[in-house]
C-alpha cells in the first residue's frame, strides 16, 4: 500500500477525529429535535388553532328584516330578493376582460371599470361586486349566456321593498346599507357588512326590533381563499328574522289621505283614534320614494332631495311648527271655563264685537271686519269670533295663560314612536324677557295668544292630540304607530276637568253644521252622523297664511280626529274640505268593513284579513 498522508496520523488520531465528527453531527440534530419538541409538544395548541383558523372562513349571514304590516295585516314593508353580479377572484388580466364583457351589457363606463379594478386590487381574495340589484332583463340575459361570462356569480341578497312607496314615506322611513364608521361603533357590533339600517321613520325607531339576529356559517377554504364547501366540524348558526311589526295605520285610509293631500303642494295630514292614541294615517307633502332611497341613489339625487327648498325629508306632522290660529281657541275656552269665566250656562259671558277690540294703544282686529255683534261663547266658537277670545284672554291674564299652557302638556313632544319629533312653544315670563327684553312686553301679549297667534306654536300632531283629549273629555293617550294595548299608551288626564271640556262639543259641531259655522261648506250632506271641527289660519310672516282644520267624526261619539295643515292655504275653511273628503272615505270603509264582518259571521276575526 502506497504512502498516504492520512496514515501517518496513526489509528488513534483517526479514532479521535471520528468521535469529534460524530459529536459535530449529533449536536445540530439534538438542536433540531429540541426545536421540534418545542413546536410539536409544548406549543402544539397554539399552532393547531392557527392551522384551524387558516382554513376556516367565517361567513356572516345577515338576518332578514322583520315585516311591517298595517292594522289589518296588509304588508307595508317586506324583503324581496335582489341580485347582484359578482366576479370570482381571478388573475387581474382576466378580471379586466370579464369586466369589459360585462360592461357592454351593463353600460359601465371605462372609468367605472377602472374603479372596480382598483377595488379588486385592494381585496383580491374576495369576490368583486360589480353591480347590485340588477333588473330582471339583465338577470335573464346573464342566466342564458352564463358560459360566456367566466367567473360570474349572481348573488342573491334581500332588499327592502315598500309596497306603497311614497304613500308611507313619512311613516315607514327608509333603510340604507350600514356605513364603515357605523360598523366600528359599539351600537352596531352585531351587524354584518351590507346590513340594512333604518334611517328614518318606523324603520329607524324600531331598528333594534326589526333587525333580528345575524347568523354565521363556516366554510373551508384553501390557501388561495377558494370556497371548498361547508366546514363540517362547526355547525352554522342560522340568522333569526327581525320581529314583525303591526302598525296602527289603516292602509286604505292612508291611501285615501295621500290622494287627498296630493292636491296641495306643501302640507300634512294626520288621523288619530282619540280613544286609543292610534295613528290611522299620516302623510306629509312633499315626500320621497323610500324604495329608491333604500336601494342606494346617486349622491347627486341625494343632494337634490336634501337641499330642496320644500324639504321633502321634513315630516311636517311632527316636525312642522305652526301658530295654531283659531284652532287653538278651544284651549282658551277650556281655560276660561276652568277659571270660572264661562260657566255651565254658556250665556255667562257675552261680548259685543265691533270688528275688533281697542286694548291700550293697539287695536286688535276680529277677522270679521263688520263685527259679530252681541255674541256668546257658543257662537264665538262657531263663528270663530276673535273679539270674544280677546276678552276672555284678558280675563285669564298672560301669566295664567302661559302657566296652564305649560301644565297642559299640549306643547310638549307627544312621544309618538317616530324619531326626531319637535316640541311646540308656549312662552312664559322668562321667554318674553329673553326674546323681547324686560319692559318690551306686557299683559297685552295675551290677546294674540288667546286666538292662537303670536308666540305660540304647535306641531299638527300636538294639535291633534289636544283635540283628541277634547273628544274624550280629558283622557289622554300617547299617539303611536305600533299596535298595542291602549292602556300602555295612557297618559295623565288633561289639566281641565271633564265638564269644562265637554262645553266645547256642541259649539265644535256647529262650526261645521251650524247656520253660521266657518266650515259650513264642509258639512256632510246626507250622512247619518256629523262632522265637528275647528278652522284656523296660521299667520305666516314669510308669505301667504297657512290654512288649518281639525275635524272630529262622528261629532257625538268621536272615533277619529283628523288635522290638516295646508301651507300657504290662506283660510281654514278651504282645508276643511280635505278633512271632509277623508271622512267620507272613512265612512265608506267602515261600511264595507261591517258588511264583510256580517258576511263572514260568526268568524269576526277574518274581517281584517282581506287580501289585496
Amino acid at each position, binding site marked *: *500500500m502506497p504512502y498516504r498522508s492520512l496514515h501517518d496520523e496513526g489509528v488513534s488520531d483517526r479514532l479521535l*477525529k471520528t468521535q469529534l*465528527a460524530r459529536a459535530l*453531527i449529533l449536536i*445540530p440534530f439534538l438542536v433540531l429535535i429540541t426545536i421540534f419538541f418545542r413546536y410539536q409538544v409544548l*406549543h402544539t395548541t397554539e399552532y393547531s388553532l*392557527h392551522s384551524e383558523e387558516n382554513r376556516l372562513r367565517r361567513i356572516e349571514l345577515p338576518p332578514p328584516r322583520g315585516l311591517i304590516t298595517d292594522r289589518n295585516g296588509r304588508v307595508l314593508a317586506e324583503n324581496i330578493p335582489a341580485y347582484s353580479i359578482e366576479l370570482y377572484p381571478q388573475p387581474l388580466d382576466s378580471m379586466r376582460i370579464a369586466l369589459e364583457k360585462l360592461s357592454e351589457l351593463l353600460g359601465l363606463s371605462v372609468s367605472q371599470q377602472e374603479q372596480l379594478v382598483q377595488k379588486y386590487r385592494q381585496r383580491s381574495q374576495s369576490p368583486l361586486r360589480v353591480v347590485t340589484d340588477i333588473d330582471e332583463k339583465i338577470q335573464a340575459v346573464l342566466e342564458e349566456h352564463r358560459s360566456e361570462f367566466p367567473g360570474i356569480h349572481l348573488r342573491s341578497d334581500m332588499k327592502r321593498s315598500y309596497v306603497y312607496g311614497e304613500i308611507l314615506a313619512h311613516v315607514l322611513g327608509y333603510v340604507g346599507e350600514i356605513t364603515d364608521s357605523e360598523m366600528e361603533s359599539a351600537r352596531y357590533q352585531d351587524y354584518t357588512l351590507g346590513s340594512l339600517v333604518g334611517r328614518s321613520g318606523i324603520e329607524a325607531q324600531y331598528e333594534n326590533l326589526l333587525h333580528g339576529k345575524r347568523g354565521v356559517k363556516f366554510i373551508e377554504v384553501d390557501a388561495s381563499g*377558494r370556497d371548498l364547501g361547508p366546514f363540517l366540524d362547526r355547525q352554522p348558526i342560522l340568522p333569526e328574522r327581525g320581529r314583525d311589526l303591526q302598525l296602527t295605520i289603516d292602509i286604505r285610509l292612508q291611501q285615501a289621505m295621500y290622494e287627498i293631500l296630493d292636491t296641495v303642494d306643501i302640507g300634512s295630514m294626520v288621523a288619530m283614534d282619540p280613544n286609543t292614541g292610534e295613528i290611522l294615517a299620516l302623510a306629509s307633502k312633499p315626500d320621497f320614494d323610500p324604495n329608491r332611497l333604500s336601494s342606494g341613489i346617486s349622491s347627486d339625487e341625494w343632494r337634490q332631495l336634501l337641499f330642496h327648498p320644500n324639504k321633502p325629508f321634513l315630516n311636517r306632522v311632527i316636525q312642522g311648527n305652526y301658530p295654531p290660529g283659531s284652532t287653538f281657541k278651544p284651549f282658551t275656552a277650556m281655560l276660561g271655563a276652568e277659571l270660572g269665566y264661562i260657566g255651565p250656562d254658556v250665556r255667562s259671558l257675552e261680548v259685543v264685537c265691533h270688528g275688533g277690540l281697542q286694548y291700550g294703544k293697539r287695536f286688535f282686529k276680529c277677522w270679521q271686519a263688520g263685527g259679530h255683534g252681541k255674541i256668546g261663547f257658543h257662537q264665538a266658537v262657531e263663528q270663530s269670533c276673535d273679539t270674544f277670545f280677546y276678552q276672555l284672554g284678558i280675563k285669564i291674564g298672560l301669566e295664567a295663560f302661559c302657566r296652564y299652557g305649560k301644565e297642559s302638556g299640549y306643547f310638549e313632544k307627544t312621544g309618538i314612536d317616530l324619531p326626531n319629533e319637535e316640541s311646540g312653544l308656549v312662552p312664559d315670563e322668562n321667554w318674553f324677557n329673553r326674546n323681547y327684553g324686560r319692559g318690551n312686553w306686557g299683559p297685552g301679549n295675551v290677546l294674540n295668544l288667546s286666538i292662537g297667534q303670536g308666540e305660540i306654536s304647535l306641531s299638527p300632531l300636538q294639535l291633534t292630540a289636544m283635540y283628541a283629549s277634547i273628544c274624550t273629555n280629558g283622557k289622554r293617550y300617547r299617539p303611536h304607530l305600533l299596535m298595542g294595548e291602549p292602556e300602555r299608551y295612557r297618559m295623565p288626564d288633561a289639566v281641565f276637568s271633564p265638564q269644562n271640556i265637554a262645553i266645547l262639543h256642541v259649539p265644535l259641531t256647529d262650526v261645521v253644521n251650524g247656520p253660521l259655522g266657518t266650515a259650513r261648506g264642509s258639512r256632510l250632506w246626507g250622512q247619518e252622523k256629523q262632522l265637528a271641527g275647528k278652522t284656523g289660519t296660521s299667520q305666516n310672516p314669510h308669505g301667504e297664511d297657512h290654512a288649518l282644520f281639525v275635524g272630529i267624526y262622528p261629532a257625538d261619539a268621536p272615533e277619529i280626529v283628523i288635522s290638516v295643515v295646508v301651507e300657504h292655504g290662506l283660510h281654514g275653511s278651504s282645508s276643511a274640505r280635505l278633512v271632509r273628503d277623508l271622512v267620507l272615505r272613512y265612512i265608506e270603509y267602515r261600511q264595507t268593513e261591517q258588511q264583510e264582518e256580517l258576511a263572514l259571521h260568526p268568524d269576526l276575526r277574518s274581517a281584517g284579513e282581506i287580501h289585496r
Partner: protein
Amino acid sequence: MIWIRKYDWVMLGLVFLLTAFGILMIYSADQIQTTRASGVIHYQRQLVWLAISLVALFLVSAFNSRVLEMTSYFCYGLTLVVLVVLLVTGKGVERWVMIPGTGVNVQPAEFAKLATILALANYLAGRKKRIDSLKDLVIPLLIVLVPAGLVLLQPDLGTSIVFGFILFGMLFWAGLPLIYLLLLVSPIVSFYLALVTLLGQMRLPLWGLFFIFLCILIFYNRIYLMDAAIFTLANLLTGILTSPLWNSLKLYQQNRILVFFQPERDPQGSGWQIIQSKVAIGSGGLLGKGYLEGTQKNLAFLPAQHTDFIFPLVGEEFGFLGVAVSLLLFFLLLNHIIELARVSGTSFASLASVGIACFLFGHIIINVGMTVGLMPITGLPLPLFSYGGSFLLTCYLAVGILQRFYIERSSV
C-alpha cells in the same frame, strides 16, 4: 454479481427505509383537496427515478475505487464545463438541463457536488505533507470554491453552502488544525455579527467583541505571520465594509434578509412559507394528524410540499414521533458513513466518505432547519425525501460509491 453479497446492508437498509418514507410522503403531498393541483403524479415519477437510481447504485459499485480516483479530475472538469456553459448561455437561473431526446430534466449542480467531493479527496489523499498553512489551502479552496461560486451565480445559495460543508469536513478529516478551520469561517461570522450590530438587534457591539477574541486566538496559536495578517485584515475589512455594503442594497434586498430574521414582518410574502411550515409542524402535535390527513397540506397552505417543504408534511401527518424517527434514521445513516470513513482502506475512500457524509449532512440540516425558521429559505432538497430525480440519483450514486468503499475496506 458477486459484489452484491458484500454490500453494507445496514447502510442500505437505512437508505431504503428513508426512501420509502420519502415516497410515502410524496404520495401524500399529491393528495390535495384544492382544485389547484397540476395533475402531475409526482410519486410515480419518483418511483421511476428510484429504479434508475438503483441501477446506477449497482453499476457504480461494480468499479474498483481506483477507477473513481483516476477519473475524478476528469469528471470534475466535465461538470465545471457544463456549469460554465449553463451560466454563459443564460440558462443558469433555471438550474435545469434537458437531456436531448429524452425529455428528462437534470440538475448538473447536483452531480457537481459529487464530482467535487471525489476530486478534493483525490487531491488531499495525494498530498505528501500535512496541511498546516494558508498556502497549502490554496488548491483545496480552489477545487471547491470554483464550482461553489458557479452555482452561487446561478443563483443557488443553498448548494453553495453545502460546498462549504464539504470543504470544511474534508479539510478537518485531512488533518487541518482546528484554528485554521475557525479562521476560514471567521470572515463569514464577522459579516453576520457586523450586520446584527448594524441593525441594532442587540445593543452589544458584537462584531467588535468577536474581532478582539479572534486577535487573541491568532496570537496564542502562533500561526504563520503572513496567514495571521491576512485573516486579521480579512475580518477587519468585512467588519468595516458591511455597513456601506448593506446600505448599497436595494430596499427589497434588505427586506429579504430582514424577513429571514423576522418572518412576521411579511406574513403574506416571504414570511408566509416559514409561518405556514411552522403551523403545519406545530399543529401536528405528538402523533400527527394521521397519514394523508394533513390539513395544511390538503389545502395547499404548505409551499413546495413535494420538494423543499416535504419535511413539515412529516411533522404534520406523523407528528413529533415521525420527525424524531426520521431524524434518528438520518443520524444513524451519517454515523454509519463516518464509521465507514474510519475503517476505509485508502485515504481517498476515507476522505470521499467524509465528503459524502458532509454533503448529506449539509442538505439535512439546512433543509430541516429551514422548515422551522432556523436557516434561510434556500431551496435545498431533503436527501431521499424530496421529489426530484437528479438529486435522488446523486444520492444513490453516492451510496453506490460508499458500497464500493465498504467492499474494499481494510479489515481493521
